[in-house]
């Protein structure tokens, strides 16, 4: 549905997007992830034909953004970072205008306006002026505006920015529902959002592509060694953490045991295991057989956050190394 090849966008002084290539298949929800200023918005603006690329190409729904922008625009819905609303217009008035801009008319248009109002839960503010709506409603009207012409591709720039937690959940739910019929790219710097709503992630940093993979693979990729948190309690009030630590370290597959916390007769250990080691059963048995109580045993799962920081960190380290090396050459 979307094919981006060696896309570069340079401004007068800096390069916002540097040689990015990726592909999005039909019906997918893709998270476009990166810290602020990574080039997410610029890439999206190229895809929506708002900005022309400096070099490289982008094909959306079968049409090149430079050669047939009108055809591309007909097939995309776009929600910019701040929803493009006219404060002096009422909700339905505005949606009707946008629908007309996108080429709808007559009964079809009226039907679509009602449909998106229901879908985005803004039916109760139909006659209100947009300038008087709360942030959450404004965002939803923005989303309604993007889907009014039922586009093949939806491009959403930070759709949940500035919303409260309840609204964030509702918006994510809405995006997930839209996923079936539309191909969606959404940008965000919030990782949990990607974990919850997207199937595919594209991570960029400082204009460069860092990784593109499925959410699942990406989580696994950085997992490597698993660590487990174990809480142990002594049965009659006394517990010597050193003994426990020693006992746990003896289990095969364990590469390290660290005492995280000690409280009265309870102690929490973080047990590092070697790659591929499945030791949770052994740990439990060892604790119980030694006469202690096992209060808790849970994997210290790494979130996508850590994966992301690791990937972005690697990138900047590599860059730092590169500049150091080139510095030496001179």
């Amino acid at each position, binding site marked *: 549905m979307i094919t981006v090849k060696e896309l570069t966008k340079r401004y007068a002084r800096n390069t916002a997007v540097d040689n990015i290539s990726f592909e999005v298949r039909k019906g997918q929800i893709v998270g476009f992830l990166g810290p602020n200023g990574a080039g997410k918005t610029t890439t999206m603006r190229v895809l*929506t034909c708002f900005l022309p690329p400096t070099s490289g190409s982008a094909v959306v729904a079968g049409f090149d953004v430079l050669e047939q922008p009108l055809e591309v625009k007909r097939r*995309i819905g776009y929600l*910019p*970072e701040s*929803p*493009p609303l006219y404060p002096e217009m009422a909700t339905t008035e505005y949606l009707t*205008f946008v629908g007309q801009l*996108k080429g709808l008319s007559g009964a079809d248009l009226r039907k679509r306006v009602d449909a998106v109002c229901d879908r985005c839960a803004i039916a109760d503010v139909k006659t209100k002026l947009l300038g008087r709506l709360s942030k959450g409603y404004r965002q939803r009207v923005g989303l309604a505006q993007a889907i009014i012409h039922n586009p093949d591709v939806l491009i959403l720039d930070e759709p949940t920015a500035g919303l409260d937690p309840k609204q964030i959940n509702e918006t994510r739910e809405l995006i997930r529902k839209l996923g079936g019929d539309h191909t969606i790219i959404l940008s965000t710097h919030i990782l949990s959002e990607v974990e919850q709503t997207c199937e595919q992630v594209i991570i960029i940093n400082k204009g460069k592509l860092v990784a593109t993979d499925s959410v699942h693979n990406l989580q696994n990729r950085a997992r490597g060694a698993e660590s487990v948190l174990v809480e142990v309690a002594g049965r009659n009030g006394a517990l010597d953490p050193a003994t426990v630590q020693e006992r746990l370290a003896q289990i095969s597959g364990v590469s390290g045991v660290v005492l995280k916390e000690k409280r009265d007769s309870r102690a929490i250990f973080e047990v590092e295991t070697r790659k591929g080691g499945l030791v949770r059963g052994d740990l439990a048995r060892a604790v119980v057989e030694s006469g202690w109580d096992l209060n808790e045993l849970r994997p210290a799962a790494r979130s996508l956050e850590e994966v992301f920081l690791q990937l972005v960190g690697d990138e900047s380290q590599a860059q730092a190394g590169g500049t150091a090396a080139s510095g030496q050459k001179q």
Partner: protein
Amino acid sequence: MRNVWIILRNELRRYFVSPVAYLLLTMFAVIFGFFFWNSLGYFVYVGMESQMRGQPFPMNVNEQIIRPLLSNMSVVGLFFIPMITMRLFAEEKRSGTIELLATSPIRDAEVIIGKWLAAMGVYACMLLFSGLNFVFLFRYGKPDWKPLLIGVLGLLLQAGALLAIGTFISTLTKNQIIAAGATFGVCLLLWILEWVAGYETSTWARVLSYMSVITHYESFARGVLDLKDAIYYVTLIFLGLFFTSRSMESLRWRS
């Protein structure tokens, strides 16, 4: 064509739901009314004077009321035009709605023409609203209506040219005050260029005075449709709208 109509209708609606259009209409009507009352009063005074002296003076409603009134209005219009055009693009750039227009399947030219026509519409409303005064002239006198129509056509052409320039200036900034200020400056300059002709007769002075929007209105005010002057205004309209489209295009490259 359909897209131009959509933009035009939306712009007009936004002019008339905000106080902007009503303020402009009222201010223009008050000023026009004052000028009308003034020239009518003077006309009546001169008429009485000539009767009392017993030597009838040739009196003509067209020459002594309508012509000076239209000339005055063409100058007063200069002050109102910046207020009409300042918001056209500057507001869209500030609020981000320009992104909606730029990512919709609609050509830049259609947006520009739609917006310019909406500005023309507001100006035409101003003229229409104030022009009600002319009804009295036709009720109590017998003015010739052809010169009046040509005069109004001239006003519309002149406003069209200045509105096109104002539209262009509005694409250059996010700030409506700056857009209005700059447009006002340009309008004023295009007016006072004419003054050089008062004391100079060199080629330069003639070129400068030829560039003035007021110079070209004189024939219209007299009720004469001079093709040369009409072409001057139409050229200015095209130039203004062409620069607007270039400027909109460059927004994308610079941003």
